[in-house]
């Protein structure tokens, strides 16, 4: 075990995968001397050369399109798009090409690429740099969607994403880059589609992912002190999300709360709540609930941005209402 930041953990994973497979390569803006926007590529170009860590022009359409073309021609590109907001510049290539080629061409080709694009707030970078777009990608058939919340997961999940034969939208979180944690450098790739259960509780099932994992863990701590037990899950993979684990938990607790940073309206929480309600309606003790951001662009000013954030107090309060009625 070694202590690494979330950024360093992903860098280690990419380094290990590039050493293991000469067809793994990375492309994007500022990867070489700069080492990526958070240092997550630092030193890799010196290590593997400029053919395998490619500095590109600021051309998101071409970054994503080139990743698709290179993937169908037998390589495993990791396309860096910096921020999820800029991932939208490449949405055409990701949605119309990457997600559909295997299907449209009847399985003649796979598209084993990773589209890395960090989501979420980062202390005042405002409306065009703060979005959490995961529900949009989950909606697109053909894509796998992954959102790591810890250094260990950003190591094991990135390895898994690179080895996955489906196109993976890989959503790191901007406020987690400097988070430190224990990482087993020899850890195998994580199994995609498997949630992590952070704590067990019998009163409600609390589902979250990405940065909100840490907020929800704080809330669950508070709730435990009050005698409310939260069965807390970090989904880690958002498509396919771990229905088995969540359904089994809701069968035990009879209550579901989903909390995410993304806009609440038509967010992924709505899908999880709907799925649970359709399948487990008779076993529910209370209407499932979801917490998410307001349907408004993210403001710049700190007190305004803070209003958009779901706090541990918000999560705890929603849980209390769910359990105590």
């Amino acid at each position, binding site marked *: 075990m070694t202590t690494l930041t979330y950024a360093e953990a992903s860098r280690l994973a990419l380094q290990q995968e590039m050493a293991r497979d*000469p*067809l793994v*390569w990375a*492309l994007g803006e500022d990867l070489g001397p700069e080492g990526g926007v958070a240092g997550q590529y630092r030193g890799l170009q010196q290590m593997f050369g400029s*053919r*395998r860590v*490619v500095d*590109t*022009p600021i*051309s998101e*359409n*071409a970054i*994503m*399109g*080139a*990743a*698709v*073309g*290179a*993937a*169908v*021609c*037998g*390589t495993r*590109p990791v396309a860096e798009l910096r921020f999820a907001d800029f991932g939208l510049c490449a949405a*055409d*290539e990701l949605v*119309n*090409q990457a997600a559909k*080629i*295997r*299907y*449209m*061409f*009847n*399985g*003649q*080709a796979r598209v084993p690429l990773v589209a890395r694009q960090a989501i979420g707030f980062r202390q005042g970078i405002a409306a065009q740099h703060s979005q959490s777009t995961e529900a949009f990608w989950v909606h697109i*058939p*053909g*894509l*796998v969607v992954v959102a790591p919340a810890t250094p260990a997961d950003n190591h094991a999940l990135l390895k898994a994403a690179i080895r*996955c*034969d*489906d196109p993976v939208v890989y959503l790191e979180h901007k406020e987690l880059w400097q988070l430190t944690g224990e990482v087993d450098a020899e850890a195998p790739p994580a199994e*995609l*589609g498997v949630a992590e259960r952070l704590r067990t509780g019998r009163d409600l099932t609390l589902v979250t992912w990405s940065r909100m994992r840490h907020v929800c863990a704080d809330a669950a701590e508070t709730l435990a002190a009050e005698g409310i037990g939260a069965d807390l899950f970090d989904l880690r*993979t958002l*498509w*396919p999300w771990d229905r088995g684990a969540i359904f089994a938990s809701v069968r035990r607790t009879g209550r579901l709360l989903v909390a995410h940073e993304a806009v609440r309206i038509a967010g992924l929480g709505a899908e999880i709540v709907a799925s649970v309600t359709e399948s487990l309606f008779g076993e529910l003790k209370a209407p499932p609930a979801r917490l998410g951001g307001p349907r408004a662009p993210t403001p710049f000013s700190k007190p305004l941005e803070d209003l958009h954030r779901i706090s541990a107090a918000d999560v705890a309060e929603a849980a209390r209402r769910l359990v105590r009625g």
Partner: protein
Amino acid sequence: MLPESRTTGIVRLRTMRLIRAFETAAAAAWHAGKVRGSVHESTGQEAVATGIGAALRRDDWLASNHRGHGHAIAKGADPRAMMLELFGKAGGTCGGKGGSMHIADFSAGMLGANGVVGDGVTLALGAAHAIGLRGEDRIACAMFGDGAMNRGPLLEAMNWAAATRVPLLFVCEDNAWSATTRTRDVTAGPGAVARAEAFGLRAVSVDGNDLATVETAARELVEAVRSSGEPAFLHCRTWRWRGHYAPDKALYRDEAEQAARVTEDPIARWEAHLRAAGITEAELAAIAAQAEADIARWVAEAEAAPYPALRAAFTDVQDLGPPEELARHAA
């Protein structure tokens, strides 16, 4: 005339005749209600597809566009399977799941037609990177129209390919039309070649209705791209004989101009070359008749062929998290 054998000349004519017969039959089947969706005919542009296809190796990668039937045939895709695909039948190039706009045949190096103007070009850019990474001596080729010259992804790809030096041949098949709008009316500057040269690309413009000219230029550029590993740009001036797609009667066209441009028929011009080389009228007629008979037979086979198994509607979406309906139809 190319400095090649009589046999090569006949093979090229066969390819052009097959493309024309394919397009004519595809449009007729669409009008008869037997083919659904979109059919974009490339009639009149056969020399571009054929010349490029002849200059490329089978293992070179070609990314095409929505008007891609000719490109696929010239690259070596099986026209019988392509016709099955147009009819949405089992055995089609893509099992009936793609249709006209999504015909791909990876076994022939054909990376796919494309429903989004300009997107095939960035795919070819990625193919060129893969070639470098894998240490292969293939090249990548992107075929696109003059309309695509105004799309961002193409402009991004031209800059990138020139800046990073990858083995990619850009082929602009300039048929003068951006769907139903005259390209010159919506395009600034002196043209495609000037744009390519502004990015530092070696660019050549040819009469795209003369097969010998297209093939000679294409061979030279393909060889240059292959040996140098650097990109190049070929501009082929041609004319779209039909509307943008099957239902388009092209009433926006100037009839006098249309009448003048179809006299530049690339097939008639190639036949004139072949006549001069001693090939007889009877031989030329036999090649045309054979192409039409083959296409007619494949149309009949496609009409009679079964539809794909219904479960195909849900297969090959993704390994992880496939559609829930798949379980229902798996049996």
